[in-house]
Each structure stands twice: as C-alpha cells, then as structure tokens.
C-alpha cells in the first residue's frame, strides 16, 4: 500500500493529496478547467453527481485525474459521473479507486460517457482494494461513441484483493467509430468474487472494436467473464480475446465469449483460453535463476499489467 500511495503522490502535488479523505475529486493542474469547460459537482445525501462537458475542439495532453476512495474500514461511496466530449475534442482520464482498509465498504459507480463526432478519449481506471476482501462494488459504464470517434479504455485491478465486484461496460458505436477495451482482474482471496460483463454494439457501418479480457484466479477466488460483441451493420469488424489463468484447484473461472453478427458483410473473431501457467515458461525462468514461486509471480505480473 505504501508503494501505491507513493506512486500516487507522484501524480499529484503533496498538498493535493489529503491524508484522510472519504471522497475527493482531483486534478493536478488548476489551469485544467478553462472557462469554457463546464463542471458540475452535486451531492445528494451520499450520492455524488459529476457532470463534465468538454467543448468542441477541446484538446489537451494533460490527463484529467479522478481519485475516489474510502480510507476507513467501513463506508458507502456512490458516484454518478456523466462526461460529454463535444465534437473534435480529445482527452485522457485517469481514475483511481482506493479502498485500502476496506472491511465493509460499498461503492457504486454508474457512469455515462458520450463521445461526439471525431472525439477521442483514453479512459484508464485503476483499483486498489486492500488485503481484506471487504469491499463490495457495482461499477457500470455506458459509452456512446458517435461517428469517427475513438475510445481506448483500460480497467485494472491487479493487486491486493477484489472483494465482491460486478463490473458492467456497454459500448455503443456509430459509423467509423473505433473502440479498444482491456479489462484485467485478479481474484486473490476466498471471498473475492468478480463478475464482469462487457458488451459492444457495432450499430452502424465500418465501426470496429477490440476487446481484451484477462483474469487470474488464485487462493480460492472466483471470476466470471462475459465478453460480447454484436455487429448490426455492414463492414463492421470486432475481435474478442479472453485469456484466464487459474492457479489452484479451489479457484474458479467461467469465461463466456459471445459473438452475434446480423450483417453478411461484417466479421467478428474471438480467441479464448483458460488454463494453468505454461510449465515451459516457468522452466525458462528457472534456468535464469528464478525460483518456481518467483517465476509464477513474474509471469502473472506481466499478464495483469
């Protein structure tokens, strides 16, 4: 955890990161929000509504950083973000979700993201839930990608424990839009139960998508991954890539890839595998001086990175 906080501090100025916070919303540069940018933060009881509207042609290399978290053992955090990127705008969002001491924490995130024509968004969400497997999460996002827009989305929970987590992504794409999504999760405790459902709808012609789902289940953890692509128009292309590693006999992984094509001029492909770590990989690393345990850690670290 210390290392994680240190890394986080590098992202923010020291003053910006409060020692104790229940919920915060941060950006490292005050100048980030120009007059043209509309930002609304509304709190209704324990619900936090965020509304961000990026104007036409808004472009920046500076990432917008969200940081949500509960540092106490118990608590609720409900966040409902709505983000709109107007025509030709371009942005990167980094979202950190921290529940380092969670023993009885409930977090709900229900987001809606709209990418208007030619807009581009890189959306990265990183989670850290501590070692007690005591959080319960419901995270759902809907992305609406209009003509020629581009979405790159990464979600990772690759250390500590997950607790109970339901993650649901829906991506709706119009003509010539492109999406690339990667979800990487680790179930690392008997109470870790992860359920992920990601659906992409290629609604109009020439829309393309690439989905990558990665999961590692160990120490009796369980993961259910559902990846789905539906192509409804001509010249759509999609690829679904699901790979999972199961590390012990008491863990469980269910992987369900689904493809649905409703137009003869579109094509969808998929590759899927669940299994143990390739013993040849372990042998190769042992020959370089790593123990079997170190070799496994090395392989999993890369797999979930």
């Amino acid at each position, binding site marked *: 955890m210390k290392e994680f906080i240190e890394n986080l501090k590098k992202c923010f100025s020291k003053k910006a990161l409060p020692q104790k916070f229940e919920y915060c919303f941060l950006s490292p540069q005050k100048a980030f929000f120009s007059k043209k940018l509309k930002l609304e933060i509304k709190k209704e009881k324990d619900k936090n509504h965020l509304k961000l509207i990026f104007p036409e042609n808004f472009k920046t290399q500076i990432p917008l950083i969200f940081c949500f978290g509960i540092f106490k053992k118990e608590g609720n955090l409900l966040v409902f973000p709505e983000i709109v990127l107007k025509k030709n705008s371009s942005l990167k969002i980094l979202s950190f979700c921290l529940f380092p001491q969670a023993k009885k924490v409930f977090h709900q995130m229900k987001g809606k993201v709209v990418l208007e024509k030619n807009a581009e968004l890189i959306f990265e969400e990183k989670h850290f839930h501590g070692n007690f497997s005591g959080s319960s999460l419901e995270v759902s996002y809907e992305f609406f990608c209009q003509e020629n827009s581009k979405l790159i989305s990464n979600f990772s929970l690759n250390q500590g424990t997950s607790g109970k987590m339901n993650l649901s992504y829906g991506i709706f794409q119009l003509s010539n839009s492109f999406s690339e999504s990667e979800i990487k999760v680790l179930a690392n405790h008997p109470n870790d139960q992860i359920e992920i459902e990601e659906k992409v709808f290629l609604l109009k012609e020439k829309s393309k998508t690439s989905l990558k789902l990665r999961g590692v289940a160990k120490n009796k953890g369980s993961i259910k991954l559902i990846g789905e692509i539906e192509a409804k128009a001509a010249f759509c292309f999609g690829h679904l890539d699901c790979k999972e590693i199961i590390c012990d006999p008491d863990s469980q992984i269910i992987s369900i890839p689904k493809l649905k094509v409703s137009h003869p001029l579109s094509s969808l492909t998929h590759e899927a595998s669940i299994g143990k770590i390739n013993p040849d*990989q372990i*042998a190769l690393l*042992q020959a*370089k001086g790593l*123990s079997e345990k*170190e070799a496994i850690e*090395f392989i999993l670290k*890369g797999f979930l990175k």
Partner: protein
Amino acid sequence: MKKETILKVENLTVKDPETKKILLKNINFSVKKNSIHLLLGKNGSGKTTLALAIFGLKNFLIEGKIYFQGKLLNNLLPEKRAKLGLGMVFQNLCFFEGITLKEYFSIFKKSEKEILKAMKLVGLPSNFLERTLDAKLSAGERKKIEIVSVILQKPKLIILDEAEAGLDLPSYWAFLDLVLKIKEKTKATIIFITHRTSAWKISQEATLIDNGKIIYSGKVKEAIKKYFELQKIKPTCPKLIS
C-alpha cells in the same frame, strides 16, 4: 574427476515423472572446460531431455550422477544450478504477455549499458528494450533475445538447444559466428545441441545420442561418421570423414 572436465554425467537414467517410461538409459559422457561440445542426434533421440535433466527441469525421475565443476548437482533446484553457472537457450521459446525486454533482462540485475552492448552483439536495436515479449516478435528476434539473456547471465556452461532451428542457411552460418562470439564474450563452455552436422566446424568434441542412449562420445569426426551410419545416408562432405 579430471581437472579440465566441467561437466560429467555418470550412469544417468531418466524416467518420465508420470508414466515412468525410460527416456534416457545409462548415459555416460563428459564435457571439457572451454570447449564447444557438439551433442548430435536425430529428432526425438533424447538430446533435449538430457539438457533438461542436467538442469533439473521438468521433474524427471533421475538415477545416476551429474557433476558440474566437481559438485554433485542431483539434489539442487534448477535455480541453484543456474546460480552455480549453468545457462541454457531453449529449443521451444515461449512468450511473456505484458513483459518488456527491459523487465525481462532486469532478472540479471545488469546496467542498461551492459544490456545494450549485448543487444548490439546479436543485432538487436536499442529501441527493442520497450517491446513486449509477445507473439508479435519473429522467431529469429525471440531467439536473439534469449542469446542476449544468456550473455547477461554469464554462465560457465551454456547449453544451446537447437538454437539455430528455423534459420535459413546464411543466417545459420551467421549464427555459428555468433556462437563463437558468445564463447569469447562469456568465456563459457558450450554444449551445442543440434542435428545439423555442419556445426563440426566450430566444435572440439562431440557426443552422439540415439534412442535415449549414448552411441559415441569423443572426436567430432568420428561422431559425425557414426551419425551418418546410423541414418544410413552418405555424407555430403566426404573429405570430412576420410
């Protein structure tokens, strides 16, 4: 054990850990220090199994003794054998999703300068350090990466297990040059596992293995002669064995 011997294998019998099938039977051979030792044999003869058994990999059931620099290896874990000075370039090279070359080479705790120097030796550009070890790499590139790692590991004995497999003829000759460069760079003894006899040019001694048994161990020319006899083919280079 003689002073100049780096590896000695005595009465080695290797069995499959699950089926108990005998894979290698009563293997006896030794490798002289600072030599390039050719380990010849056709596909499936047991060359790779012997290499893996020397390294203690794959949990084979072992009878007999393996000495490295006079030290009995039998009860040592593979990583301990690596730390003693064994190194290997595998025949089957696997990929590591998400691991960059920089992270891969960090296993050896060497400076970036040393890493770049080794990469230059095998002809890998420096911008490869940020590449990931995934299936987008060609077989040749992947092999070069393994050769860099073995240079960085600086072992005293390197087993090259058909490291030249899949190379076209010009690349193969370039590879033989590279083996000599590796030897010069690491000062290591090399066991060169192959079924291509042209590797005789750079070898000082050879062992021929067939069907899990040693047929001959000693002079290179004699080993190649027996290899041709075994396969009932005429050598393409008659002067070699005359």
